[in-house]
């Protein structure tokens, strides 16, 4: 990674005003899905308080969306904004891994 890109990334991660748009794909109310919703809410409150929006999509109700967003695994969390696009699958039980996955480690030392 170039120095410039590194600097940019740092700047973005540090930017406190960046708004997060998150989508969580679930299928019904299985234990995994319920856990994922709970874990995601807790995570966002802790790390992204006030600058996030969570959209929970139940594929059982909207099966067509599975194709549009290339969803295979359930639950899948998709971050569209900020870029780059990120997908995290699973019940999000480890907030440490969430931080790594979303490049947030540097923002919250």
């Amino acid at each position, binding site marked *: 990674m170039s120095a410039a890109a590194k600097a940019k990334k740092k700047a973005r991660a540090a930017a406190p005003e960046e708004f997060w748009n998150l989508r969580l*794909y679930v*299928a019904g109310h*299985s234990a*995994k899905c319920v*856990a*994922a919703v709970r*874990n995601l809410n807790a995570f966002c409150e802790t790390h992204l308080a006030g600058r996030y929006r969570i959209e929970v999509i139940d*594929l*059982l109700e909207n*099966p*067509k969306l*599975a*194709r549009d967003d*290339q*969803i*295979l*695994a*359930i*639950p*899948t969390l998709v971050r569209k904004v900020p870029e*780059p*696009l*990120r*997908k*995290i*699958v*699973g*019940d*999000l*039980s*480890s907030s440490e*891994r*969430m931080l*790594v*996955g979303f490049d947030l480690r540097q923002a919250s030392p």
Partner: protein
Amino acid sequence: MAKNGNGKGSMAKLAKAPTGIQGLDEITGGGLPLGRPSLVCGAAGCGKTLFATEFLVRGAVEHGDPGVFIAFEETAEELTANVRSLGFDLDKLVAQQKLLIDHIVLDSAQIEENGEFDLDGLFIRLGYAIDSIGAKRVVLDTIETLFSGFANQAILRAELRRLFRWLKDKGVTAVITAERGDGTLTRQGLEEYVSDCVILLDHRVTEQVTTRRLRVVKYRGTAHGTNEYPFLIDEDGFSVLPVTSTGLGHKASDERFSTGIARLDAMLGGKGLYRGSSILVSGTAGTGKSSISAHLARESCARGERCLYFAFEESESQIVRNMASIGIDLHQWIKKGLLRFVPGRPTANGLEMHLALMHRQIRQFQPRLVVVDPISNLAQAGTLHDATAMMMRLIDLLKTDQITAVLTSLTKGGEQREETEIGISSLIDTWLLLRTIELGGERNRGLYVIKSRGMAHSNQVREFLLTSRGIELLDVYVGPEGVLTGSMRTAQELRERAAEEERARDADSRRRSAERRRRTIEAQIAALQGELEDEADAERRVVASERTRLARRDEDRSEMARSRQADAPKPANGRGGARAGARN
């Protein structure tokens, strides 16, 4: 237990979904197991995707079964473009709601795993796709891609097991493709999950020639062909060639036809060859194998029956030209569409491909006579063993369809071996052996009927001449010096004729001298007869003159007595005697 794939009306008989793939339905006794997943595995580039696509396309077009194609590797556009050359119009099928292509993108760089998950998303997608067009057939190509997308293999395996069960419950006939693994059928051991039907595709290179093969590894509840069957992919798609499955159940025909060479017909029991029999014409180079084949081809066309000529040595125009030189006009039959040449180099394809192409040509052209000139070259396209197996299947195929096969075989070397290189002599019904008979500084052609099943055939050798009016068979000279042919035969004939003339002249002269002798004797007889008559004459004259003399003497005596006035009457004799003595 109840492996009665061929049995009829059995309760245990498995319902099947015909694939529409040429030949595969024959091997599997009807197609893939209906409503169950089947696994198609093979190495890269062996035709898995095409197999799967054709399964869907044929299902949609020929059986009205809508299908879903879940593509893990190619986009819908790529897939459509790839099979367009095979005449499959996926866009049209998609527009008709007969096909749905869903491309699943898996980018492991984008995906992070965190905790427990399942593949409900895939199930939902699949379920949605199936339900939206009422699909009866599903293809997952290649589902193993999932293993590179997710790190948690334990979850993945459990989910795959669940997926295949789910597919079964859905009642769709599914084809799941998988890469071949090292020492296993599939890299990820998918055969553990899909156990109803496993088909292995293979792509082998032997001596630089590629052959594709298909094998049904497993088919639960069905008796299936277990051999490796060659298949090919060409402009008509996928075709499997279950040629060995024909067995020996073919019907033998009693119909006979002429070879076009009258004396050859005479050698073959006077009626010629059986329809649907296999005829081998073997011989060394230049013995006239092609000429005999051309005769048979012409004769077939003249009867109005189509003939297919596979030429592995000469081009069509070369054969036509050469045969014209011996008075066989093949061109007219080509124009009339009764004769078709299929030229090709034996090395251009693998044997299986050759067989497949021949099979196709035969199916298309529907000939009554097939000429393969020569079969010996085919051994170059593979091993001898393969070539034999291939010929066996070709002959089986032709016999089943009651097509007469004329196969020529080049025997190598100076030896006149009574066997073919390719080792199929036992499969042959009528075997004509052409030999060159080398004698007196010449090579001449001789023809033998080595065998001819089902007819009383001649055991004699015939000299075989290529004239401007075609083939002529002549008797050879069999004498104390052995069999003579060519100019030796001609010379022998001349010698015999000369001797005959000599004998004729000789007899004539003997006859003439005998006649001369007879005439001489006759002349002698005539001369003697003359002498005899002369003698008799002389004798008569002597007798007559003596009588006259005696009469005169008596007269004289009595005259004298009268004149002497002797004692009268004296006996005439006494007087006469005295007087006669005095006069002498």
